[in-house]
């Protein structure tokens, strides 16, 4: 690899007094491409993409190296284009966006850890749809990330007032209490969340953590009841998680002390974070918005990449209903491009007079289908 020069890509954009930068480079140790997003020179979010089936440092094939260089450049362009289109969408929504659209855009910003931008969108969403509980929930998350715990608790509580049956809201409120070190209140909320979703692994993890913290504060870290309670919760968190790990199973069998359990907590947390669906879910929101507000600008290749990414995430275990829904919508949107291709072939066929009749019939079919899909999408977007 000595003679291989892999470029580090860097691009900047200024938006409403802030400067944003995207940096992309190859990490030879991990064989991954790392895409980082900076705001005002501070790292806000980073994404690591595995380069499949290639060990670049071992590769001597120049063509292969060139291919990887192209891939790195592609990931960089993709992230940069996404950032620009997010700002463009934000402008567009100010003119004609509804509450759920601002909410979705807020989620995409939140997925990129652009908290101020997310907050702004959520607040706009609340102006347009003041009783839409998910917005309060996500605004609560933003405040929690910004360290504004009281604001965060207030928002989670409002969300629960509107929709008291949501496990997520109880869990998030519990997390805010955990942050505030109000362990009993936190545990109460976690228990509430489990009533609605008894397989909620993050809740078990946080419940276990709360027990450990409580034990620590009470100065009784050898209290068997507390340790057993924490261990039971960790076991459940592991049981309901889709990632399995032999080392973790051994640890869960042998754990006795507070230190053992703290270690388990850290490992479990990293296992769950590894499988976090936050990023892909925010990508779903982003595309849903673009399908609605930017349908003519979205390129075929973008949708193909999105479809591929979504399918991979599902195959790798993120079998969530909203990802499946996202995939379903993407298939429908993608079908427009395929109809256009069909239309083009039939137009060409029509020009060859010998096949004119056939060309006319088939062109009519493809055009009519195209019209129906467009009308359907328009109607769908009006209603959702």
């Amino acid at each position, binding site marked *: 690899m000595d003679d291989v020069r892999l470029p580090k890509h860097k691009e900047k954009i200024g938006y409403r007094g802030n400067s944003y930068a995207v940096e992309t480079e190859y990490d030879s140790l991990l064989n991954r491409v790392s895409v980082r997003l900076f705001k005002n020179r501070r790292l806000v979010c980073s994404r690591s993409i595995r380069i499949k089936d290639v060990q670049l440092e071992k590769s001597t094939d120049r063509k292969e190296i060139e291919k990887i260089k192209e891939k790195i450049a592609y990931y960089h362009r993709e992230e940069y284009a996404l950032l620009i289109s997010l700002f463009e969408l934000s402008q567009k929504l100010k003119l004609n966006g509804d509450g759920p659209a601002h909410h979705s855009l807020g989620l995409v910003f939140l997925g990129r850890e652009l908290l101020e931008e997310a907050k702004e969108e959520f607040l706009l969403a609340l102006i347009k749809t003041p009783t839409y509980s998910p917005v309060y929930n996500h605004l609560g998350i933003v405040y929690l990330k910004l360290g504004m715990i009281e604001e965060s608790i207030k928002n989670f509580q409002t969300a629960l007032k509107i929709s008291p049956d949501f496990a997520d809201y109880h869990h998030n409120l519990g997390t805010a209490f955990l942050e505030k070190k109000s362990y009993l209140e936190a545990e109460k909320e976690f228990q509430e969340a489990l009533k609605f979703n008894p397989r909620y692994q993050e809740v078990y993890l946080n419940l276990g953590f709360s027990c450990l913290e409580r034990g620590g504060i009470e100065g009784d870290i050898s209290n068997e009841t507390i340790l057993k309670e924490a261990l039971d919760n960790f076991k459940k968190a592991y049981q309901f998680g889709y990632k399995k790990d032999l080392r973790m199973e051994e640890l869960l069998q042998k754990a006795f002390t507070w230190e053992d359990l703290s270690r388990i907590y850290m490992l479990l947390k990293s296992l769950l974070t590894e499988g976090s669906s936050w990023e892909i879910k925010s990508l779903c929101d982003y595309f849903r918005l673009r399908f609605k507000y930017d349908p003519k600008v979205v390129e075929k290749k973008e949708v193909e990449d999105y479809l591929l990414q979504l399918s991979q995430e599902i195959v790798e275990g993120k*079998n*969530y*209903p*909203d990802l*499946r*829904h996202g*995939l*379903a*919508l993407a*298939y*429908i949107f*993608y*079908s427009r491009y*395929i*109809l256009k*291709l*069909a*239309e*083009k*072939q*039939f137009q*060409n*066929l029509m020009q*060859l*007079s*010998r*096949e004119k*009749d*056939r*060309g006319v*019939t*088939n062109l009519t*079919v*493809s055009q*009519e*289908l195209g019209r*129906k*899909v467009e009308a*359907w999408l328009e*109607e*769908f977007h009006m*209603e*959702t």
Partner: protein
Amino acid sequence: MQTEEQLKVEKKFNQETKDSRLLVEKYPLSIISSLALYFNSKGTPEKAINLLVSALEKWPEEPELYDQLVFLANKAGKPKEAEEKLLEAQTFYPENPLVCGSLGKHYFLEKNFTSAKNLLEKSVMLNPEDGANHLFSALSSLAIQREDKGINLSELPELQQIEKDLQRSKELNPEIVTDDFLKGKELLTQNNYSEAFKYLEKSLNSYLNKKIEFTMFYQLFFSFYMEPEKFDLEKLKKFIQELEKKLSLSLSSEKELNHLGCCYILFFINLIKSSEEQLEKALILDPEFEGARKTMGFLEKMKTEMLPLIDSLRF
């Protein structure tokens, strides 16, 4: 009184006719056409003929079915069925070039060259853009002329017409051109008419075989309609890629251009199907998922309006 064997044959025939009618009621025209090719590929051309005869009762104004009937009936050694239908059609559509052309082709294959020539000439006059008609017409003329032994054709206008027809068929239908076709043309210029006829007839036969081949294109549509559980999306994608590649190299014929368009439509339907499958899975995971329910509702409405349109595709 009929023998037991005769009764058995009649019963089988009646059943097959009934089955054919059911198929014709159930499936669109293009699929019936694919189905006929499927039956032929499975070694049951008589089923294909029954099906096409039933199809022509439903769609008597679809002249392309007549060509298919002629070629399949010829392969199955059952030319009478084709002739009967064609004569019937001719009384209704005497000026239809495709009906004239099919009947001409039928007479040619039956070696009734004079009738073939008259009908094919009429068909060419009514529709000069059909390359296959030009080839059949040239061969009919050649067959008649070579029978008049001792005449030197080279000075006669007939030969010039034959050469013109061959040239037109080549221009209009490049897939007709094979080594045999070129050799036949060469022999013609050397006034070796009998040998020329043999080679040109060989190229015509290979064209006919291609016309009734149950190709990957037909297999894909057949599978989609008849055996949807076995439909292979990857095969479709691969086939589309092959056609796209051919098209980018300007190697594709008009037929392939149409096939590519139809394959895109098939791919489109499969995308809608995939979308539906994902929604079903989402709703299994969360039966209360309002968004997925709404999308499913829209999709069902869309499918109801879409399917009749797709059925009217013409291969």
